[in-house]
């Protein structure tokens, strides 16, 4: 046992420390699993004072997001912080520890008697993802078309800085402008600024009914035009997914049964070859959306383009192009692409940049891969001074994330 492991055991108890293994990188590192925010803060303070590099881990489902960190001496796992602290159905809000999984949260909030609510986030591999991890990666899925991304649903957070300071930002009410909105800063910061230990989130009621509209074998320009029409149509899309190269469009409408049927009809009429999907097919569609584009080998990139360039992006995903599979949220022009085995990510990134868009690593970004997008130089300098202000010794995930 190394002295670090011994010190962690003294701090947390034997059950909360796993001896060094190789899952965090080439150098073996132990894992600490503190049971309270305070204990987690103490672990960070200890690592910080010894100038160790710490990686935060939630469910591990987005371990590959962002650039791989430069080094890791200690993994701090949040999974023992897994309580739902408050759920006030009348406010449509909840407060939970950051290590609670999204799947478990959904189960718990759905079980409040007389209410049927959920957190309207459906990131990839979402069930096992922890809330802290979802926020730290700003991960989202098809539902963002209507409900936005973690930045829109996070009301407040409690977090630990590398030096062990525990602090809060925001609150648990849906409207609040007191102090800086550090929740936005933590969202997408990939564990490089602070360890999120608690989150307050906005919930939504589960709509009583859903209808699906499907179309196949669309070509890129038709798909772009159909989506442009849908964005202005009197229909509220909860999802509008484009799956390429097969040219599929999947749209979901939610609401009162009569309302969603009428809106589905409007959508169907606007999409060439559009038809309503039956219940059995719908289940299949949901599973397909969840798998794509993660099934199969090859790097996966997060991707976004202006909505009036979607057609050109889809053309890049035609059979024989660099993209094996593309899943795009058509109303916002953001999603994921899995590249063909031999395709060059940097080259693909450059083509997306030409469209005015962005890419980021969601799988396969290795230690040496360059950041795929240059940042605005002054924004980069500000980002660096924010990093130094909150984590002066670069204890948290050095080399990962934007700076």
């Amino acid at each position, binding site marked *: 046992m190394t002295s670090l492991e011994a010190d962690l055991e003294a701090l947390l108890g034997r059950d909360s420390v796993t001896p060094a293994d190789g899952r965090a990188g080439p150098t073996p590192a132990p894992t600490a699993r503190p049971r309270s925010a305070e204990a987690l803060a103490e672990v960070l303070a200890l690592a910080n004072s010894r100038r160790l590099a710490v990686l935060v881990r939630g469910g591990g489902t987005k371990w590959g997001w962002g650039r791989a960190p430069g080094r890791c001496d200690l993994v701090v796992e949040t999974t023992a912080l897994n309580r739902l602290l408050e759920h*006030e*159905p009348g*406010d*449509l809000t909840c407060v939970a520890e950051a290590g609670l999984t999204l799947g478990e949260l959904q189960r718990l909030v759905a079980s409040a008697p007389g*209410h049927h609510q959920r957190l309207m986030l459906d990131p990839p591999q979402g069930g096992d993802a922890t809330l802290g991890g979802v926020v730290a990666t*700003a991960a989202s899925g098809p539902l963002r078309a209507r409900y936005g991304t973690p*930045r829109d649903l996070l009301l407040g957070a409690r977090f630990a800085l590398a030096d062990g300071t525990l*602090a*809060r*930002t925001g*609150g*648990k*009410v*849906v*409207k*609040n*402008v*007191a*102090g*800086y*909105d*550090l929740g*936005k*800063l933590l969202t997408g910061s990939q564990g490089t*600024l602070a360890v999120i230990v608690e989150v307050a989130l906005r919930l939504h*009621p589960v709509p*009583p009914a859903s209808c699906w509209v499907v179309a196949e074998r669309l070509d890129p320009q038709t798909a772009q035009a159909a989506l*442009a029409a849908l*964005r202005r149509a*009197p229909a*509220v899309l909860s999802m509008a997914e484009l799956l390429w190269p097969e040219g599929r469009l999947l749209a979901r409408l939610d*609401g*009162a049964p*009569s*309302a*969603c049927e*009428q*809106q589905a009809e409007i959508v169907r009429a606007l999409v060439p070859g559009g038809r309503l999907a039956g219940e059995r097919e719908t289940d299949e569609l949901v599973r397909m959306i969840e798998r794509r584009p993660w099934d199969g080998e090859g790097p996966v990139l997060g991707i*976004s383009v202006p*909505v009036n360039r979607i057609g050109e992006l889809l053309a890049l995903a035609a059979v024989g192009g660099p993209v094996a599979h593309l899943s795009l949220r058509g109303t*916002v*022009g953001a999603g994921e692409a899995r590249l063909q085995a031999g395709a060059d990510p940097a080259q693909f990134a450059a083509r997306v940049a030409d469209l*005015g*868009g*962005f890419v980021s690593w969601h799988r396969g970004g290795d230690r040496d891969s360059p950041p*795929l*997008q240059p*940042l605005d130089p*002054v*924004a*980069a*300098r*500000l*980002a660096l001074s*924010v990093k130094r*202000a*909150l984590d002066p010794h670069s204890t948290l995930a050095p080399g990962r*994330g*934007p*700076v």
Partner: protein
Amino acid sequence: MDRIPARLDQAPLDALRQAVGGRWVLTDPDQLRTYECDGLTGWRAVPLAVVLPSSTEEVVQVVRICRRSHVPFVARGSGTGLSGGALPVEDGIVIGLSRMREILRLDLDNERVVVQPGVPNLEVSRAVAPYGYLYAPDPSSQRVCSIGGNVAENSGGAHCLKYGFTTNHVVALTLVTPEGEVAHLGSAVPDSPGYDLLGVVVGSEGTLGIVTEVTLRVLPVPQRVQTLLAAFPSTDAAGEAVAEIIAAGVLPAAIEMMDRATIEAVEFAMHAGYPDCGAALLVELDGPQSECEALFGQVVEICRGCGASEVRVAEDEAERALLWKGRRGAFSAMGRVSPDYYVQDGVVPRSQLARVLAGIRELEGRHGLKVANVFHAGDGNLHPLILYDRRSPEGPDRAKRLAEDILTLCLEAGGSLTGEHGVGRDKVCQMPKLFSPDDQMVMHRLRRAFDPEGTANPGKVLPTPRLCGEHPGIYRPHPLELSGAAQRL
């Protein structure tokens, strides 16, 4: 800062004149007085000078001069803020953005509009209306307040219940940092790389730099709008209806509540024809016709179930305007029934509305002052109006104490210090009620990462021991409000 000049030295003054042109640097005491306060008129300070740049480049030069000469600066939009955010600092200058008021680009294919910071909020919606779009955040000061001020305050409005606040509608901005550099934050396209610094700058009240260009998201105008006014025996009953509407999963565009004191004032001042009742709810739904119709019936039923004696439904645009008339005129009406009033801005969890309103009634009795409530009930954002007479010996002090007690009540219920007016100078000393020293320390570190020298709007947002010994003056209504050009929400 190592040196604070008592007046602006000749060298920086010359440099400022060189940067923006002599006529855009104001130093005449009479002119300066126009800038001595924002909408919260109880706080006043005369700045050393007011500088009115016309471009990002000029702002950069002005900020660099400030930095070189150790002169603090305060950004100012239209000066309608209600927390003293644009209150000048006596040893500093005001940088007014009112000359930067161009709408630079419409990109409606991508639902984006690019504007300069001095553009009034309503101008954005006006510019895109011919194409069937709108800009959703609608503070009641929208005819006057600037987009730069909205960004700095993360402003809200009646329709933010459904559409979210300014922060949900700003996708990119240009920031002149306190060190005089130009940063481009965010992007017209989602998921831009890097930390979400944009999200931090929105709501930072001019303390992280000066916003000189903003890219906004605009939305298609909804197909249908439906509005009703429901009369309840009490605020308890109305509060219950709000809770039920929210819990039923109906998301109206707006839910506004008025209590008896407000309704009486409205009837006295403008004969809006509101029903005689303990509390009224104004509920507006918008969206696809099919959805509106399905939900509207549900809202009517919930109101009846919670004891509404009357539910008036607007059949056309004229009737809708009539229903909103009393709500929109509520504040000026209050001016007719009370010599003075102070508007508090607090937030409570929606499930606590009835309890907190009862608490406010109890405080009324204890302080011997009347409170009228007219507010954004849907998101729990209270705006109690504390009615007092500044000529009575203890009036202002009592009003202030009552306002603070109401805030304490909000915080005890799990709410917040401010829902849309910001901390500014007014609530800086109340921050410790919500945030621990460590919470504030982290915010302070963030601020210093943007502004190492502390030149950007010092004395706002975060408390310092020097600040928190002072007392604010009494409240006086904003000139806009008196002229009826805008309402205080």
